[in-house]
């Protein structure tokens, strides 16, 4: 019984990372997603994309705006980050998930964050 609080907390913590469309990510998870997107050793999205208040964004790729309109299918957005080369072998975008730069959980956190833009 003593551990039930921990388990509940852990479950709550993991919810957004499950990446289910139904589960609404909380603020802390969105912050984590943003941090991963901005981290130059992780998503490093700013190297190529304009994102919200990110400083000195690159412009090799399109700006990250209206993400829900552009990617109504969550799986398509996830796949674009996981392995952009699957859809377009000549894509410049690194296959972050496939090549192990980001874990599945990290990709999901970034997808959740991108959907707020």
């Amino acid at each position: 019984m003593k551990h039930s609080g921990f388990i509940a907390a852990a479950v709550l913590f993991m919810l957004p990372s499950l990446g289910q469309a139904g589960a609404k990510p909380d603020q802390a998870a969105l912050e984590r997603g943003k941090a991963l997107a901005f981290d130059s050793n992780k998503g490093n999205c700013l190297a190529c994309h304009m994102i919200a208040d990110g400083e000195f964004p690159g412009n090799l790729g399109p700006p990250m705006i209206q993400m829900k309109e552009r990617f109504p299918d969550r799986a398509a957005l996830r796949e674009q980050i996981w392995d952009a080369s699957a859809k377009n072998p000549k894509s410049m975008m690194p296959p972050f998930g496939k090549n192990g730069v980001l874990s599945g959980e990290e990709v999901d956190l970034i997808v959740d964050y991108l959907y707020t833009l």
Partner: protein
Amino acid sequence: MIKNRILRRLIPAALMVSAVAVSRPAQAVNYQALVDADTKAFQSYFIKEFPEVKLADYANGVYALNEDSRRQWQEMEEFPPYELDIEAGKALFNKPFANGKSLASCFPDGGAVRGKYPYFDEKRKEVVTLEMAINECRVANGEQPWPGNKGDLAKVSAYMAYISRGQKVDVKVGSKAAYDAYLKGKAFFYGKRGQLNMSCSGCHMEYVGRNLRAEVVSPALGHTTHFPVFRSKWGEIGTLHRRYAGCNENIGAKPFPAQSEEYRNLEFFQTAMSNGLQYNGPASRK
């Protein structure tokens, strides 16, 4: 109908002519012509992308693209950060080896030979770069080769580039072996690699002039004309192969050693793509 009849008669004749045309180069392929066609296509790509940039200005690297940044850079070049390296390189070039000879005894024209490198050595069947030749001169005279891609090796290279400024880039590919080395360099340039699955051409052709974070992506045309460079990021002078290694690391690919066959072939290909430009090294870069 008349037309068809004429065509029918012409076709065998045309086939015979083309068969002769095809069989002739099979005996003696003009490899230089193949490379020249590549170079022309390569340079045309940039001319079309940036019609306002003069071809000769590509020797200035990324500063060819933007007049404001070029002016800032030119101001920096008035008191160049590599000045002391050139002086040190000159001293090293003339410094006697233990046997009394020096680097100066290996190179003609007082060492103003930048324009002759890289070249394909038909006897050894490999690409020889300037840095390789410098170290081979040392070894031939009983000295240890200089390590890596910076320090004394880069300084002597900088001095030799400096006294060769204005020489024309004119890489020659005159044999099948040379063309094979060239093709290996070409494959390296266009091939995707590393954890980030990127190629040289992906950034330095397709996205030239765009911003990668706060930096502008430099054009591949002219990449090899101005090395070695004093890079602010390094705080010192370094060779082209050091830059290659840094680029490979950035995309999560294992860098090849300086003067490895891979990088020499890449330098050979890249320099051929800049044929017609002028050598203007050393240079300063961010």
